[in-house]
């Protein structure tokens, strides 16, 4: 995979400084060896404990097929410590999300960071991954 040095360093930074919030076992649901980076359009946000979820319509580049994905983040209190509010993501926003895929192969992932296309701002998702194996 071709990667710009600064992008690679940015990802390394993410892996290193993500604050950790534990809830359920990360490893039981998600596979740290299956990273993803997806861009899509926000369709729904569920700002709730113990995990905030948001949903993206993601268009497959090759087939143009649209799939609605769900992404898990931390809890509202943890997200607010990372600079989020309940209105950070709005329906229709274009965002790029990075994280780890669910083990069961469904369109579901654990988000580690989210970049808003409108501002370029990157926010950490208070992922339960952190240092978890």
């Amino acid at each position, binding site marked *: 995979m*071709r*990667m*710009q*040095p600064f*992008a*690679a*360093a940015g*990802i*390394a*930074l993410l*892996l*290193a*400084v993500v*604050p*950790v*919030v*534990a*809830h*359920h*076992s990360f*490893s*039981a*649901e998600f*596979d*740290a*060896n299956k990273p993803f980076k997806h861009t899509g359009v926000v369709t729904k946000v*569920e700002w*709730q*404990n*113990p*995990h905030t979820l948001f949903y993206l319509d993601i268009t497959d580049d090759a087939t143009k097929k649209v799939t609605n994905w769900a992404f898990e983040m931390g*809890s509202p*209190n*943890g997200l*607010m*410590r990372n600079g989020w509010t309940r209105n950070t993501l709005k329906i229709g926003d274009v965002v790029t999300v990075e994280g780890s895929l669910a083990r069961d192969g469904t369109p579901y992932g654990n988000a580690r960071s989210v970049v808003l296309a409108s501002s370029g701002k990157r926010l950490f998702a208070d992922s339960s991954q*952190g*240092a*978890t*194996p």
Partner: protein
Amino acid sequence: MTRAARVAIIVAMVIVAFWIARAQGPAGPRSAETTPRLADGTPNLGRVAGEKGVWNVPYIQNMGMRIPGPDKTTAVQRAAAAAAAARAAGAGARGAGGGPLGGGEGAAGGARGGSKAEPDVPFLPWSRGVYDYNSRNNSKYDPEGYCLPPGGPRLMATPYPMEIIQQPEHKRILMIFEGATHIWREIYMDGRPHPQGDELNPTYLGHSVGRWEGDALVVDVVGFNENSWLDYYGHPHTDLLHVVEKFTRPDKGTLRYEAIIDDPGAYSKPWTVTWDIPWRPNAELTEYICQENNRYQRRLTDDFGEPVFGSGH
């Protein structure tokens, strides 16, 4: 390896080293302020009047890695020191000092060594079997994943901030926890004994009585139920669990935590775990209610593919 990948690895190593040093190393200049004290000279384990701040509890996933050896260091500290030494020795020594106990905290890809990797944990045969089972399924059945509270030392190992509030006038100390389930515990400082027999009701947090030994708060805890694990990795315990905790504040920025885990139902002898908890100035607790909409419970299936929590009646 591409140049980009090398840059990424070097940046990651530097950051991780800094992070570990900050989390575990000797107190830096920032936290070298002396231990705050109450008017009577007792160490103040909480806020200084007029200031904010919380204890920033770290994510201690595996207490088998937190057992101090003969030199008083834990496996996690030794691994960090060895990794730092390897880095200092140059790129060629990469990994020379690594390999913490066959997949301990921070191991990638879910590789966990189970009981074989933890010679210092005095397992009984059944607790060894249960621990290996929890290792193999990546802690799938962790009670904290069901929003049940941590019991015993795991209170100080679940990564949500907490506060200690001393009320000498009431002869008690309160500890309030943002997570994992927004709970508090009360430590009786009035010299009372533990309840005996059926008066001792098994609970998640047990019955805590405390006393000061010099500058150390020593808390004796019994009366645990068997619904919790000692840690995320799944070290089990029974209702015979007896924990002796020692809290000290060697400087303003550090809460040193030590716990003796004495459970003849699960372990052949007592074992001790220890770690430091950093002070986070200016921070406050916020609300976290795990039970709100825990979808993990709805998704969770057992080893036979059946829903763990059933479809309900």
